[in-house]
């Protein structure tokens, strides 16, 4: 080999000193800010959050103040949407329904996200038999039809007739919903793992844990976040579905799904108790899915 080194007369262009990560996130935020759909979704989400945290801001009525005499009465006396079959204020119930829905949605998504993150990260990073094992695990969970598995599990967890089903629903949705997040995480990790900067870090002696946490994780996180945002919407819808079927929130819990179920048989006579919770539910799910869409589009370099 020749022993002369290249003495370059080129002035190297200025390489930005920020890491890859922050510029991607920064770009994404700029993208995000410019999209209408993001702002619409964001506004909706904020409104719903407010409703969940401070329902009294939106209504002074008590959703549990139900007087049978007012059964199916129309709007009036402060009840914007009238009364349901038990004589409860439909508007109040709808507003208060946001709290549990959001609570369940967020908790379940966090659980699912955590499980998905760990499974995906380990399976993607270590590969080999661990990957095979974990992937089979994913297959098993996926093979159980979601709704049916959820019904069975929720029922089992909420066997105590006193409970209002909150814990059961959260755990059920969390435990059954992590698979997509895990798969997305796994493939993001696999592609990140093969990048040069990871090899470089490994050459410098980084331990697997450090590699995973400091180098690979930050760069695989964006598709994962997108999945989680959509999962939030799905879990909110999931809770409503389970409650509708009678295996979700029960007792004196207030949920949109429950309200829809209760309003069903009477829908021919009064539509309001069915329609309003439906609209709020749909709008909430829509808001989170739109948010997920906007975030995904913002992170996707191909769409620029």
């Amino acid at each position, binding site marked *: 080999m*020749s022993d*002369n080194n*290249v*003495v*370059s*007369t*080129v*002035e190297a*262009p200025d390489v930005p000193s920020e890491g890859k990560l922050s510029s991607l996130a920064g770009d994404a935020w700029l993208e995000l800010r410019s999209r209408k759909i993001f702002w619409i979704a964001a506004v909706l989400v904020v409104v719903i959050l407010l409703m969940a945290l401070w329902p009294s801001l939106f209504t002074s009525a008590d959703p549990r103040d139900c007087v049978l005499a007012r059964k199916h009465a129309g709007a009036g006396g402060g009840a914007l949407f009238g009364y349901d079959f038990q004589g409860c204020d439909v508007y109040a119930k709808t507003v208060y329904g946001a709290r549990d829905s959001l609570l369940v949605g967020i908790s379940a998504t966090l659980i699912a996200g955590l499980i998905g993150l760990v499974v995906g990260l380990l399976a993607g990073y270590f590969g080999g038999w661990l990957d095979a094992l974990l992937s089979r695990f994913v297959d098993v969970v996926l093979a159980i039809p979601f709704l049916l598995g959820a019904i069975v599990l929720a029922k089992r967890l909420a066997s105590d007739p006193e409970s209002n089903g909150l814990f059961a629903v959260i755990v059920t949705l969390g435990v059954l919903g992590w698979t997509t997040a895990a798969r997305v995480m796994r493939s993001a990790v696999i592609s990140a793992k093969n990048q040069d900067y990871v090899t470089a870090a490994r050459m410098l002696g980084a331990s697997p844990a450090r590699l995973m946490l400091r180098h690979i994780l930050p760069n695989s996180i964006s598709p994962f976040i997108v999945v989680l945002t959509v999962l939030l919407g799905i879990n909110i819808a999931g809770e409503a579905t389970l409650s509708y079927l009678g295996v979700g929130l029960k007792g004196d819990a207030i949920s949109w799904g429950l309200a829809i179920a209760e309003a069903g048989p009477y829908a021919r006579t009064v539509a309001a108790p069915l329609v309003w919770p439906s609209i709020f539910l749909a709008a909430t799910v829509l808001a989170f899915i739109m948010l997920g869409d906007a975030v995904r589009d913002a992170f996707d370099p191909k769409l*620029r």
Partner: protein
Amino acid sequence: MTDIRAQVDALPGLDPRAALLEVNDLHVEFRTRDGVARAVNGVDLRLSPGETLAVLGESGCGKSVTAQAIMGILDTPPGYVTRGEVRYRGVDLLRLPEKERRKVRANRIAMIFQDALSALNPVYTVGFQLAEQFRVHRGMSRKDAKLRAIDLLDQVRIPDARRRVDDYPHQLSGGMRQRVMIAMALALDPEVLIADEPTTALDVTVQAQIMSLLAELQRQRDMGLILITHDMGVVADVADRIAVMYAGKVVEEAPVHDIYAYPAHAYTKALLESIPRLDLKGRPLNVIRGLPPALTDIPIGCAFHPRCAYAREICRLEPAPTYQIAPRRTASCHFVREVLGV
């Protein structure tokens, strides 16, 4: 479907005695969110039958865009041809309606691309993609088209063509895939072949094979060949003339020997000087300092001046006119004489 050959011959304005291919003052721009990228800024080219014209330049100099504009396969939006003509035997292709223009494609002017793996459709066999040309443009039956496909594979020296014709692109090696692309381009016996970096993705030994195959096929068919490349080594053996491009313009055009021996543009000269040479072992390599300009922000005056060793005040202010410095040589430099050393 009828045979298209007759239809092409009937194109209005077609003059078999006119120059095979002429590009005059071609301008192409790309309108993006970050501004207008002026990819091609007044390119003139000429090609005769049997001649090999090499278009040489760095990435981003506009050579591929020029080729795509000639073929009419620019992505529009965001790409737009804003000025100029592309004349095939006297017919201005840019002004033809798309339906007519399509007849010229592949039938008279064909193109091959750099990465044959992505340039071939992965879900159809090689035979299908070859035979397609005959079925669509010549109205042949499946059986006949397949026989012609096998024949083509033989012509490009693919062994065991009869079996290979039913293979999928991913089953072939890089060199074989490129041969398939060449076969596909030559299927309809075009008069012009544009090869856009045909060997860049290949190993050096395979490169040589492909280049010699191209040369031989060209000779056999008396075809005009435009070879687009950034590799000066490939060019020396194969080309008759070289056109050097920079920032969307042809800065120098000359017969191949002349350009290597006596470059007339500062850029060409710098390029040649940067080639590592065995007899200069032990000395630092020459590099052209700086980077090619962003196409949204091409410098006023001569586009090369920020990097030029010969640059003076006038280079900053005015673009260089094109000087005819010899019967078949042009160069666009304010200081041709200095560069030539006369």
